[in-house]
């Protein structure tokens, strides 16, 4: 059985294609030619569009998570539908593959399913993240155009409440069951902090038993309401980072068909001591900080950013991300994982007073500055 690509775009190296199961594949020119993709020419200095773009659809949320990176509120404004439709058309035209809707709470929009339908009709792969508040069977049915819906669930054994400041476990688990009953593919977003990371293995088992097909692990980031001194009491300790890498390695053989665990871009440096060489990671699409590269964002005002945490005016943030990757400082400059990690999370480096710099929580950066090791 052959696997035909469902979307493709030419690149200076060859092409990116998307397969029917949403796997992305990069091909060289010869292979792209064999697939019959029309040739393209690229001007000097060409910058490719992101593969994935995160689109904020509302600033409104019914809950008050203490660490909300968007500082969403109960009376926040929705982004106008006309603006979002224009955004989707522009993303399609630029060659983007995946669009991820976020908020605030996207479910507060009555037209969320309509947005997914529109993205699908353009050939984009739509996904969305929700707390699950306000989800009914009827709403879930309207979300069937989404390739996947991720429900926030920060863990068993009190993990959820420790991260968000309230216990939303029952709501999240009801949402997971409701989505599954309506035939919607479900994943779980799990923010890792000092308070819940020790329960990770139990959470993996629990989420799997609920029928989620994926657990997305997220580093706690000091943005929005989380940009405070409290960050220092929530971030993972160096010992927890070391243990996380080994936990992921031990989980790996149990993952694959039917259930997957993902690490976000910001976690890559934290577990870097456990990772293999960059060449292998690159071949299998492991992404560190891709802000301004394979990743982009569209803010509530319609402007473009490097990632959801990029609040620099205009294109300043995107330019800064790209400039850092092109010429990083030490220890990133000579780090063997540089091409994959791309310097770690700049949200963290800025919050901790290091400016736009190497991730100060990366164990390789810590060792470098302590004078104990090369990267």
């Amino acid at each position: 059985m052959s696997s035909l690509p469902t979307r493709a775009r030419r690149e200076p190296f060859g092409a990116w294609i998307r397969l029917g199961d949403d796997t992305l594949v990069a091909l060289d020119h010869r292979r792209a030619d064999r697939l019959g993709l029309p040739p393209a020419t690229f001007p000097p200095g060409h910058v490719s569009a992101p593969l994935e773009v995160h689109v904020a659809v509302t600033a409104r949320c019914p809950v008050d998570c203490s660490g909300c990176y968007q500082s969403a509120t109960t009376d926040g404004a929705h982004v106008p539908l006309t603006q979002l439709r224009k955004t989707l058309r522009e993303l399609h035209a630029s060659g983007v593959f995946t669009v991820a809707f976020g908020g605030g709470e996207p479910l507060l929009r009555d037209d969320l399913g309509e947005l997914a339908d529109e993205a699908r009709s353009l050939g984009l792969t739509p996904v969305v993240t929700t707390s699950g508040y306000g989800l009914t069977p009827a709403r879930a049915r309207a979300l069937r155009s989404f390739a996947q819906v991720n429900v926030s669930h920060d863990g068993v054994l009190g993990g959820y409440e420790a991260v968000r400041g309230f216990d939303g476990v029952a709501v999240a688990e009801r949402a997971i069951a409701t989505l599954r009953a309506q035939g919607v593919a479900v994943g779980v977003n799990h923010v890792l902090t000092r308070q819940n990371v020790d329960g990770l293995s139990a959470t993996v088992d629990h989420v799997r038993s609920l029928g989620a097909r994926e657990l997305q692990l997220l580093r706690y980031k000091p943005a929005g309401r989380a940009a405070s001194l409290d960050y220092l009491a929530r971030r993972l300790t160096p010992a927890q980072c070391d243990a996380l890498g080994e936990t992921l390695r031990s989980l790996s053989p149990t993952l694959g068909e039917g259930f997957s665990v993902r690490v976000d871009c910001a976690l890559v440096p934290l577990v870097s001591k456990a990772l293999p060489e960059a060449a292998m990671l690159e071949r299998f699409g492991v992404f560190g900080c891709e802000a301004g590269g394979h990743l982009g964002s569209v803010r509530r005002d319609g402007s473009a950013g490097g990632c959801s945490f990029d609040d620099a005016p205009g294109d300043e943030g995107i330019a800064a991300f790209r400039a850092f990757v092109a010429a990083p400082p030490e220890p990133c400059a000579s780090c063997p994982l540089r091409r994959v990690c791309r310097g770690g999370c700049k949200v963290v480096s800025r919050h901790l007073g290091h400016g736009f710099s190497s991730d100060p929580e990366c164990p390789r950066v810590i060792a470098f500055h302590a004078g104990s090791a090369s990267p």
Partner: protein
Amino acid sequence: MSEALEDTTDGVLVVRRGPGANCSSIGSAVEMLFLSATLGTAILAAVAASLDPKPDEPDEPDEPAPAPPPEAL
């Protein structure tokens, strides 16, 4: 990891499992972080093979119409 991927991947440069559904940061599958070179080579080769047309496959009468070509951008 000191193993190397065998060059049997026939023009397949990268395979990235997707889509993921997070709206704030981009994710990567953990099972792809710790692949052995043997399994990695097999995955790349399988994807490469899946892109080849299979002219010897018999037509099945109930099979739906062929999918349209990919939207080229």
